[in-house]
Structures are given as structure tokens and as C-alpha cells.
């Protein structure tokens, strides 16, 4: 038992100088092994001392109670004194305090002997999570294992590309002398912001060597300010150190901007749904914030650090798309190579966090890095579970993940369109012509439509040289079925998302004013994209969502209520994008031509089905050949007719 006599001895020890440069241990020539042994022994001593102290406290307390019993005091009186003196509560608090000190001491010693050990342990568990994710997804995401193992999907290669791109745009990665040895505070924040504005100009307002897009520049500028303000707020709330070096915050935000600019550049090269600035910052971060605001309004705690982590997860969640094994495959016409991109994004984050030079590791704790990693890895999960009036830290974390999932899964409409379709109105017409050209097998028409579109792009004075190159690349990515994955998105715009007092999610979606006209040009089913949207949120297949469900005012799902305003209640207001394509979808000649072509297309399709069916039938050879020949001739007549109609129109 550690009695007070022992303590007095320890008190005397205390009077000795703690450790001086001349103490026996420091005078000896300690090699790494001996240092480690010393650390382990001291660590054990702290632990033993803590245990002995708790035991001594407890035994002394028991002895005191026994003394009370010996005095023949009734148990009720003893209990009353216990309540009055709060002795049991004190004993328990002391135990917790001692345990915390022991943990702190052991962690401190561990860090001294192996400063990178903690990082290595975190990295290992993050890698385990990635492996678990891979084995879960590999069946549906063909080739994901190879893409994951590919070195080109690592942080090092991605960083090289980001640096190369930023330098090409004229970004100067130089430190700011005014920030040297300065803490992050309102003054240094202003210095950082001013320097970052120059970087944003080079990346987004640069007609000579970069991109030119004032809309994206504005979005990124607001994002940068918001992020820097949140950092300051998190400092005031005690979640980011007040002493953090301003230079580290600068480096972190500088990198965030560069990786976002590069992601936007890569996203614009193909015809997948957007995963650049519009998607990541313009929608996902904005909606995550909107959801967290809604949670906060209901009385649930939301801290600035939660919001910062939401931003950081979003900024990195689609990084997998920039990895060469995905980028090259998608750009060469294999869009399914993006499957499981979450895993590659998480790998990049993990490797980045494993480098002690990175600002990410200096700003965020290992625990926060693990949260970021999980958020990135599972960003499109359909799991949504909001907690209201729950003070547990886990509740805050689950709210953050739910906000991330909900934001990413609700970005399905107009501003998720690929860059080529969003920023070049002529591409909608080109896609309609490509549908016909592909169906009639006219490769000359395919080429001429694409060439015409590139000519149109080159005429636009607001595009930079780089913009034109990227968009031309996206044009070459277009094919006869591109419309199937894009046009349906014109059905609505930003949904309104809010959280109720019981944590239930409410989403309001309004059909866009030009939806029917846009899908009508291509003969698509009216609410196809809306059904996909509902299916994604409910974890169901699109086919399970019926028209009857759409006709209800509200669709009650497991955790989500959807309010649809479609048909006669659709929006009357037009967005900027809708105004841009309005002249195409209201061009009477083009609409009439598309209508005629759709009729011919359907007849051609019926004949093609008949031809397939005949080929599989067992008829007498002469009879079968004659029927096949006749059907083929009829198909060709339709193809010719369709070709002539469009050639006349194009003249």
C-alpha cells in the first residue's frame, strides 16, 4: 500500500533537482536501445504509481468506513455522512484524474522515443479500413484492386501533377516572410488571404496560362474566406491550438486551393457528372453547411471544427478521379473506371497524413485525420442518422458523416452536368445530332458534329487556351449515348434540405421549368433522373420507384421525407443555365426535326429488334435469308431518311 510515509519519502525526492545534464542517466552514453528501455521502465513506474495511489485511496476509505462501523454507528448515519462529504464521488473523481495523468504520461514518453509511432499506428488502421472497403466493393467495381495498388494512384504522383499544373498557371509556391514565427490570428489571417487571392487569380482568372471562369473564381474566393474564418472560430472554441503557426494554415489552404483547381481541370476533360468546383464547393460544401445549420437550429451542438472537417472531407472526397488509372480510362471512353474512386481518395489522404512535412498533419490531430479518412472513404454511403439534443461526441461525428452523405447523394441535377454541357450551350444540340448519327451509323456525321462543336467553342472569347483544349477533349469524349447520362439532370435544381426536431430529413425538390422540353428532344422518360435520385436516397433500384410514388405530395422513406413539386406545380423561374439553353429547346425547326426523327428512330428500333429475333429463329434457309434481307433493306431506308432530314437541316 502506498501510505503517507512513502509519500513523504517521495516528497523528499522531489526536493532533489528533477534531472540535470549531470544526472547519472544523462552522463552515461545511452544508445537507442537503452533509451527505449529507460522509457519503458519509467512508463511502467508511472502506471504502477497510479495504480498504487488509487488502491491506497480506496483502502483508506474502506478503513474509515470500518472505523465508523466499529464505533457502532448505524449504517444509515454512515450513508448520510458519505452523502454529505461526497466521499465516494471524490474517490471516483480522483481515480479518473489519476488514470488520465497516467495515460498522458505514458503517451508523452511514447512520443519521445518514437515520435512517428502514433502516425504509423493510425496509418495502419486506416489502411485496414481501405482493405475492408476494397473487399466489399470489388465485385461491383471491376479492376478496383489494380487501380488501388497502382503507384500512380498514390499521393506522391498526384502531388507531382498538382504542382506541375499550378506552376504552369503561374502560382508561386513561396513562403510569406511576414508569417515567420507568427501565430494564426486575425492579423496573419488577412496576410494569408491576400496572398491566396493572387493564387486564385492565377488558377481561375487566367486567360494566358490557366483557366478563365469568374463564376468558379468567386465560389473559391468565398470558400477560402469561409475556411479561414472557421479556423479562427475553432481556435476560439479550443479545437485548434491558439499557438498554431500561421504558416501551417497558409500551406494547408494553399494546397486545398491547388488540389481543387486541378480536380476541376480533370473533371472538365470528360462527360461524367461534374466533380470539380461546382460539385465540391458550389454544392456539396454549401449543402453540408446548410444541413449543419439546420441541426444547430434544433439545439444540437455543431462546432467550427466539425464544419472545417466537412469542408476538408469534401475537398478531398473525389480526388480518386484525378489518379491516372481512372483519368486515362475515363477519357478513353471507359466511364466505369470511376467505380470505387472513394478508395483512391482515401488512400491519397492517408498517404498525405503519413508525411510529417504536410500541413494537414500539423493542423489536424490523428483522431481528426481518422474522421477525415472515414468521411472520404464512405462519402456516398446512403446511411443518414441525425442526432438532436445529444451531447455525446459520437453524435456530433455521426451528424457530420450524415451531412456529408446527404449532400453528396442529393447533388444529382442541373449543376452536376459535365462542364461541356453546362458551359457550352451548343453541346446540347450536338448531343442530339450525335444520337441520330450513332443510331444510323454515320461516322462522317459524328465527326462533322464534333468538329462543328469544337469550332463553336473556339469562337467563344471568354474561354482561355486551356479551357478550349479541355473542352475539345470533352467533345471527343462525347458519343451517341452521352445524352442518356446527362440530359435527365436538367429536371431540377438545388434541392432544399432541412433536419426536423426528431432528426428526420426533409428534402424539397421542384421540377425545372424546361425539364419536359429538354428530355422531349431526346425521347427520354420524363422523371427518370428523379427516380434515380429517390432510389439512391432510399438505397433502392431506380426501377422500384413507380410513377404512382411520384404523384404523391410526399414520399416517406426510412429517415427521409421527400416533397416533390412537379408537373403543374413546377418552377416558373429559369436559372442562368436554363436561360443559356433556352434558345435551343425553343427553336421550332429543331424541335420539329427532333420530333420527326424520334418517330423514325422508334420504327428503326422495332425493325432492328425484328432482325435480331429473326436471326435466332430456325426457319428454312431460303425463307429466312429473304426475310432478313427485306428487314435490313427497310432499316436502311429509315437510316437514309433520317440522314437526309438532318443534312437538309444542317445546310
Amino acid at each position, binding site marked *: 500500500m502506498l501510505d503517507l510515509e512513502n509519500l513523504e519519502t*517521495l516528497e523528499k525526492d522531489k526536493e532533489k533537482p528533477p534531472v540535470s545534464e549531470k544526472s547519472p542517466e544523462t552522463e552515461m*552514453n545511452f544508445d537507442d536501445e537503452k*533509451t527505449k528501455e*529507460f522509457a519503458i521502465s519509467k512508463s511502467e513506474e508511472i502506471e504502477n504509481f497510479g495504480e498504487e495511489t488509487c488502491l491506497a485511496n480506496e483502502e483508506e476509505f474502506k478503513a474509515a468506513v470500518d472505523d465508523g462501523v466499529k464505533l457502532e454507528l448505524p449504517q444509515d448515519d454512515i450513508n448520510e455522512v458519505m452523502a454529505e462529504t461526497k*466521499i465516494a464521488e471524490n474517490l471516483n473523481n480522483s481515480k479518473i484524474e489519476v488514470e488520465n495523468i497516467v495515460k498522458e504520461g505514458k503517451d508523452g514518453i511514447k512520443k519521445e522515443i518514437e515520435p512517428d509511432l502514433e502516425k504509423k499506428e493510425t496509418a495502419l488502421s486506416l489502411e485496414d479500413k481501405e482493405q475492408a472497403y476494397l473487399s466489399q466493393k470489388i465485385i461491383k467495381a471491376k479492376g478496383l484492386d489494380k487501380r488501388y495498388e497502382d503507384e500512380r494512384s498514390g499521393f506522391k504522383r498526384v502531388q507531382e501533377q498538382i504542382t506541375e499544373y499550378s506552376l504552369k498557371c503561374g502560382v508561386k509556391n513561396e513562403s510569406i516572410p511576414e508569417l515567420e514565427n507568427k501565430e494564426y490570428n486575425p492579423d496573419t489571417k488577412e496576410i494569408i488571404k491576400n496572398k491566396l487571392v493572387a493564387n486564385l487569380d492565377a488558377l481561375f482568372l487566367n486567360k494566358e496560362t490557366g483557366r478563365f471562369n469568374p463564376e468558379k473564381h468567386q465560389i473559391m474566393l468565398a470558400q477560402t474566406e469561409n475556411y479561414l474564418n472557421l479556423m479562427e472560430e475553432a481556435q476560439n472554441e479550443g479545437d485548434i491550438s491558439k499557438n498554431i503557426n500561421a504558416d501551417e494554415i497558409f500551406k494547408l489552404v494553399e494546397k486545398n486551393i491547388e488540389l481543387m483547381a486541378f480536380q476541376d481541370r480533370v473533371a472538365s476533360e470528360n462527360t461524367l457528372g461534374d466533380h470539380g468546383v461546382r460539385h465540391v464547393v458550389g454544392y456539396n460544401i454549401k449543402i453540408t453547411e446548410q444541413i449543419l445549420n439546420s441541426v444547430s437550429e434544433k439545439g444540437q451542438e455543431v462546432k467550427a471544427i466539425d464544419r472545417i472537417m466537412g469542408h476538408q472531407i469534401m475537398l478531398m472526397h473525389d480526388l480518386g478521379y484525378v489518379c491516372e488509372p481512372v483519368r486515362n480510362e475515363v477519357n478513353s471512353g471507359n466511364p466505369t473506371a470511376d467505380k470505387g474512386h472513394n478508395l483512391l481518395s482515401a488512400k491519397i489522404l492517408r498517404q498525405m497524413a503519413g508525411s510529417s512535412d504536410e500541413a494537414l498533419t500539423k493542423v489536424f490531430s490523428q483522431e481528426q485525420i481518422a474522421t477525415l479518412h472515414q468521411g472520404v472513404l464512405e462519402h456516398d454511403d446512403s446511411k443518414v442518422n441525425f442526432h438532436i439534443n445529444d451531447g455525446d461526441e459520437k453524435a456530433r461525428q455521426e451528424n457530420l458523416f450524415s451531412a456529408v452523405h446527404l449532400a453528396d447523394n442529393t447533388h444529382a441535377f442541373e449543376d452536376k452536368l459535365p462542364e461541356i454541357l453546362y458551359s457550352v450551350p451548343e453541346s446540347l444540340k450536338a448531343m442530339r445530332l450525335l444520337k441520330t448519327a450513332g443510331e444510323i451509323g454515320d461516322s462522317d456525321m459524328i465527326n462533322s458534329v464534333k468538329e462543328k462543336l469544337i469550332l463553336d467553342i473556339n469562337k467563344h472569347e471568354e474561354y482561355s487556351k486551356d479551357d478550349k483544349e479541355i473542352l475539345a477533349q470533352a467533345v471527343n469524349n462525347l458519343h451517341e449515348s452521352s445524352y442518356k447520362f446527362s440530359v435527365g439532370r436538367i429536371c431540377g435544381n438545388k434541392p432544399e434540405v432541412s433536419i426536423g426536431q426528431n432528426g428526420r430529413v426533409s428534402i424539397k425538390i421542384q421540377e425545372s421549368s424546361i425539364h419536359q422540353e429538354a428530355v422531349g428532344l431526346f425521347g427520354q422518360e420524363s422523371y427518370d433522373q428523379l427516380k434515380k435520385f429517390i432510389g439512391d436516397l432510399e438505397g433502392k433500384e431506380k426501377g422500384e420507384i413507380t410513377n404512382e410514388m411520384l404523384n404523391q405530395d410526399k414520399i416517406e422513406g426510412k429517415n427521409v421525407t421527400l416533397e416533390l413539386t412537379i408537373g403543374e406545380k413546377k418552377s416558373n423561374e429559369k436559372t442562368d443555365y436554363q436561360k443559356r439553353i433556352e434558345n435551343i429547346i425553343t427553336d421550332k425547326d429543331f424541335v420539329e426535326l427532333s420530333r420527326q426523327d424520334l418517330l423514325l428512330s422508334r420504327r428503326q428500333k422495332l425493325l432492328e429488334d425484328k432482325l435480331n429475333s429473326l436471326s435466332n429463329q430456325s426457319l428454312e434457309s431460303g425463307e429466312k435469308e429473304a426475310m432478313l434481307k427485306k428487314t435490313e433493306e427497310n432499316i436502311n431506308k429509315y437510316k437514309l431518311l433520317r440522314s437526309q432530314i438532318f443534312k437538309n437541316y444542317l445546310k
Partner: protein
Amino acid sequence: MVIQNENQKKIFKIKEIYSSCTERIKKIRLRQSDANKEFLKKIEERKINKIRDNIK
């Protein structure tokens, strides 16, 4: 030599951590001991009061 210096620094830091932790734990032990003493004192007072009440 550099490694030895580095290790000396580590030893110094470890000793510092050790001293700081044991100091803080000792303070808790003394505080708890006072609380136990106070508890026993109250028990004794109550017993004395009971005896006094009985005499009365």
C-alpha cells in the same frame, strides 16, 4: 555523438514527464487522504452527538 546527444535530450524529457506525473498523482493522494480524514472526523462527531443525545 549526435545520437547520444539526442538520447540524452530524450532521457531528460522522459524524466521531466515522470516527475510531473508523479507530482500530480501525489497531490491527488494527499487531497484524497484529507478527504478520508474529514470523513472519519464527521463519523466520529456524529457518534459523539449520538452519545450526547442519549445522555440527555
